[in-house]
């Protein structure tokens, strides 16, 4: 590097109060960030935000690709239909069932795995890589794999369940309206445990070790250490992860769509699969968007309640 221009440059930016410097400051704070940001913003705007607004407007229109001449604005007609749509209410109930049991098992098993990974044992690195593997499996493939495992012709699960006395005979539970939902839920647990384990492990590792030493000196039992130290420290992380994951799982349609397609008799139809099948099979974009808006409103209400609860709990 040559010496002189560098010094010039340094003086230019360093000297305060001068127009040059001020302009470069202005550039630095108003324009330069957008040089780095603009591709991301433009893409998100064009591919997510604008379609989102268009999508909301679709819910007030009749847009069926199979009936191109019947399209137009119809006000709240879609919403009136939705209110009296029995399938919608079934899907709502199923969404609650699916989300609740998926998140409960994912969380409990994820917490167990994180606590195991927080201890020392032989072959831990390999173990960690292997138990996190389900997370890398493409979701459509997890769905197919579990659908096959539940198939009595080539899968062992029905035979095992029958041997344990849970099923009267080895049949495919994905075809049984009473039990079908447990198929995708199992696949979802399998797929989601690593995520919880990773985030909770990170939180566990941030708990200061001295606390455990102090507890040990004071003669605390493992159960006491767990409830008095580990859980309180994990609580904020648990709250955030569970909230975000709940929303994500409620939206997650791939597993159910591939495993059961919402059947038999809509017993596994959740709101997001209902949106997809309405758009994809019936090509009824107006009604699909209406269900989507309803799902969005439900998720918003959920988030607001949760934030409110959190505020209240933090105060105490």
């Amino acid at each position, binding site marked *: *590097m040559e010496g002189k221009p560098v010094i010039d440059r*340094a003086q230019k930016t360093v000297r305060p109060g001068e127009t040059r410097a001020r302009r470069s400051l202005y550039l*630095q704070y108003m324009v330069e*960030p957008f040089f780095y*940001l603009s*591709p*991301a*913003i433009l*893409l*998100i705007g*064009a*591919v*997510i935000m*604008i*379609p*989102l607004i*268009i*999508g909301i407007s679709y819910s007030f229109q009749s*847009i069926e690709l199979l009936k191109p001449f019947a399209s137009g604005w119809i006000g709240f007609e879609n919403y009136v239909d939705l209110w009296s749509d029995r399938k919608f209410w079934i899907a709502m109930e199923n969404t609650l069932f699916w989300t609740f049991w998926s998140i409960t098992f994912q969380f409990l098993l994820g917490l*167990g795995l994180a606590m195991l990974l927080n*201890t020392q*044992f032989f072959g831990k690195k390999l*173990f960690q*890589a*292997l*138990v*996190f*593997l*389900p997370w890398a*499996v*493409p979701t*459509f*493939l997890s769905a*197919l*794999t*579990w659908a*096959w*495992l539940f198939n*009595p012709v*080539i899968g062992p699960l029905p035979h095992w369940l029958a041997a344990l006395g849970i099923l009267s005979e080895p049949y495919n539970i994905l075809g049984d309206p009473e039990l079908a939902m447990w198929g995708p839920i199992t696949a979802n647990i*399998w797929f989601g445990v*690593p995520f919880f384990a*990773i*985030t909770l*492990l*990170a939180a566990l*590792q*941030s708990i200061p070790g001295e606390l455990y030493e102090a507890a*040990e000196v004071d003669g605390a039992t493992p159960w006491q250490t767990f409830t008095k130290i580990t859980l309180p420290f994990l609580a904020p992380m648990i709250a955030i992860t569970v909230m975000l994951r709940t929303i994500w799982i409620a*939206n997650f*349609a791939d597993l159910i*769509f*591939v495993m059961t397609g919402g059947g038999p008799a809509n017993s596994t139809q959740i709101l997001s699969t209902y*949106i*997809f099948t309405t758009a*994809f099979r019936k090509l009824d*974009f107006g009604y699909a*968007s209406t269900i989507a808006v309803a*799902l*969005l409103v439900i998720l918003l209400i959920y988030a607001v309640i949760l934030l409110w609860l959190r505020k209240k709990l933090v105060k105490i």
Partner: protein
Amino acid sequence: MSAVKNPNPALIVGKYAALAFYLIFALFPLYWLLKIGLTPDALIYSEGTRLFPSEITFSNFTTVIFQTDFVAYFRNSLVVSLGAAFFTTLFAAGAGYAFSRFVFAGKRIIIALMLVTQMFPLLMIIAPIYKIVAELGLLNSLTSLIVVYTAFNIPFATFLMQSFFDGIPKDLEDAAMMDGCSRFQALCKVVFPLTLPGLGATLGFVFTAAWSELLFALMLISKNDAMTFPVGLLTFVSKFSVDWGQMMAAGVLALIPSCLFFIFIQRYLVQGLTSGAVKG
């Protein structure tokens, strides 16, 4: 707890039992996929539910590779996933860098908007996207998938990149800029080499996400020669629903790239999430 000094033997047995449970739970389905893929067709019905096949064969794999369109699906998926991973990482690195290093007007709003995109059901925009893509004449093109996946993955990738940039001391660029580099040069020459693990993790994350996306691909692609792997496999499953061995062989093949990527980036991803989580 690691701090327990005189461990109870029952606790130790319990711990190893738990380890074994997690390992079997995680690996058994994948083992089964491989097992049926390796079982000769003639034996599938007689010993489909046995734990070990009495004979193994690779004929299912060779049939899938040489006699079906799977190589084409594989190539399409590779193009889409690599394209999406490359552009996402590039744009997310820029955005993450801006979030990490600048204070500017509108920063909070942009971050909030990015968070919102993570919250609402993306399926909500499947209908508008379909119409827009159709009007642009881009149905059945891989380009449309690359653009859509890139946009979907930018928000998360941006936050990931930001946490990596936050871990790099600002002094390094300041020093480089003192020595006459522009900020952009400093970014390319000093900061990027240091964030290679972060870039790798982001690439891998987006690659796996794009590799496994099904619903948008199903909507936007209907021609056989533009199908990605998930769409192809699903079509295959509904068409030849009794060819178990071949379907599972195809499944195993679909698993390979994402597992390779995962093993490669696993360490960095845990590291990245850990440092991000600890800081947050």
